[in-house]
């Protein structure tokens, strides 16, 4: 049988963001997959070097629309570590509440997208309806539905009133019922089982070899969670379980995410019922450092790593972001091999990809054996030259 190469992306109705998947097919079966990123590069890390520490909170929050609090908190942790600021307990609790609500929102959104990819659009409608409840809670606490902007250097920007706490607890009660319903639907509904069981298999040893993190790794039996293994905020004071599954397929990822929502509700209840009192922020200096810091944060999609180098001025010397999708992306090629073309969108969606978070620039010049750092001017001249070869002139921009 002749091999056919089918390009899935960079622009494709099955993908929510641009990423390229070149699939070599033999009949319906995928024999080989070549993945390519880089269609959504925004230069966030470089832009961060031109802004002060306060401006950078909002810039790094926009690395991702869904894990916005995760990126902002990881960055703020770094700044606080270098400046040696003691964050008040109440601020930590509020950060945790927003973080866990964000996880609920992200997992409900993923459940909807997975339902849509499976062809079960009722599940998509139901779970996005309930996601609206979480977004309402976030709007009430922070003042926005998606970019919460709760962090400031040294604490949080807004306090939570008793009425807000009561309202969020009420929303959680409704959500718990709904999540239970989704768990029954997800584990009993024959259409879901038929589309997810045995699809996109990633064994534990492969998951470890390819550095899978978050729900993707936990569904392959990798028992890792930053919240438990390297606790930040108040995670060492709350009781929760790290959910793992051994089925290693898309079904396992669905179950892990559904059960993680139950755990998130449990964490939220514990924090909301025992809110520490006191200040919500300490005063932060304008100039930070010099110093370096690395911090990890368990974002809804997996482990998020931030690095910060400060040089004593009001702007950072270097910011580095390792978004969780970059870690999970490596395993997609393995999962696609051996599955059918019809399952490809679902397998890609199962890692909960966010390509624009992941896109980073690295320059590799093959053959010359040279390595070095390019300045912005050199990089610009190089890119103009490259595009001229393709017939596009950017020199006037």
């Amino acid at each position: 049988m002749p091999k056919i190469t089918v390009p899935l992306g960079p622009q494709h109705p099955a993908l929510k963001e641009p990423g390229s998947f070149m699939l070599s097919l033999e009949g319906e079966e995928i024999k080989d997959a070549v993945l390519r990123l880089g269609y959504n590069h925004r230069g966030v890390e470089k832009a961060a070097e031109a802004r002060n520490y306060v401006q950078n909170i909002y810039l790094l929050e926009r690395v991702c629309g869904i894990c916005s609090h995760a990126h902002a908190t990881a960055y703020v942790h770094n700044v606080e570590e270098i400046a040696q600021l003691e964050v008040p307990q109440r601020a930590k609790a509020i950060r945790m509440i927003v973080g866990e609500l964000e996880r609920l929102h992200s997992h409900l959104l993923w459940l909807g997208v997975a339902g849509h990819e499976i062809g079960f659009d009722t599940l998509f409608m139901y779970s996005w309806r309930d996601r609206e409840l979480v977004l309402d809670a976030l709007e009430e606490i922070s003042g926005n539905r998606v970019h919460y902007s709760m962090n400031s250097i040294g604490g949080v920007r807004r306090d939570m009133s008793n009425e807000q706490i009561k309202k969020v607890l009420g929303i959680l009660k409704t959500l718990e019922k709904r999540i239970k319903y989704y768990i029954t639907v997800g584990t009993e509904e024959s259409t879901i089982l038929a589309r997810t069981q045995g699809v996109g298999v990633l064994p534990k040893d492969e998951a470890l070899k390819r550095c899978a993190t978050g729900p993707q790794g936990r569904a392959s039996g990798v028992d890792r969670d930053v919240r438990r293994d390297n606790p930040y905020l108040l995670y060492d004071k709350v009781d929760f379980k790290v959910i793992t599954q051994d089925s290693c397929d898309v079904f396992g990822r669905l179950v892990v995410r559904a059960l993680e929502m139950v755990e998130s509700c449990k964490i939220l209840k514990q924090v909301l019922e025992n809110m520490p009192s006191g200040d919500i922020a300490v005063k932060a200096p304008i100039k930070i450092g010099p110093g370096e810091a690395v911090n990890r944060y368990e974002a809804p999609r997996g482990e998020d790593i931030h690095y910060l180098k400060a040089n004593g001025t009001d702007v950072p010397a270097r910011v580095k972001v390792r978004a969780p999708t970059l870690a999970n992306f490596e395993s997609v090629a393995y999962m696609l091999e051996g599955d059918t073309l019809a399952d490809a969108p679902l397998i890609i969606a199962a890692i909960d990809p966010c390509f624009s978070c992941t896109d980073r620039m690295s320059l590799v010049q093959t053959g010359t054996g040279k390595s070095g750092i390019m300045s912005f001017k050199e990089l610009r001249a190089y890119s103009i030259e490259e595009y001229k070869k393709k017939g596009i002139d950017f020199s006037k921009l």
Partner: protein
Amino acid sequence: MARPLRAWRELVKNLFRKHVTGQYPHTKPVIDKNYRAKILFDANKCIGCNICVRNCPADAIKIIQVNQDEKPTEVDGKTIPAKRKFKCVIDLAKCVYCGQCTDGCPVKALSSSQDFELAHFNREALIDEMKHPYETESKKK
């Protein structure tokens, strides 16, 4: 037999449920009073410290002095320079509505409103110029 029955039960329940989605332009959504939308400016309070300009992540806000030509007054033989007066110009197309300017303002001259319907066909209409009363008064003169 159990599955079709369950589906029917869900269907009948949904017949009597209220709509979750709102009919947006006809019925306005309920916006929380904490919501951060269009920024309002109180010209009489502004002292021109420029903290908002320095910390704006989108470079959207400008504070401009409007009374450079105002002459100093003389009281008991002493010349007292005129109090500096400022207007605020916000580019609503650039603004990300984070509300950092309202948080950082030491005299609370800036505040967030709940006005979220800001879309416009014309880019220039998005430049929101909040004048100081002095400007309009001096023009009348």
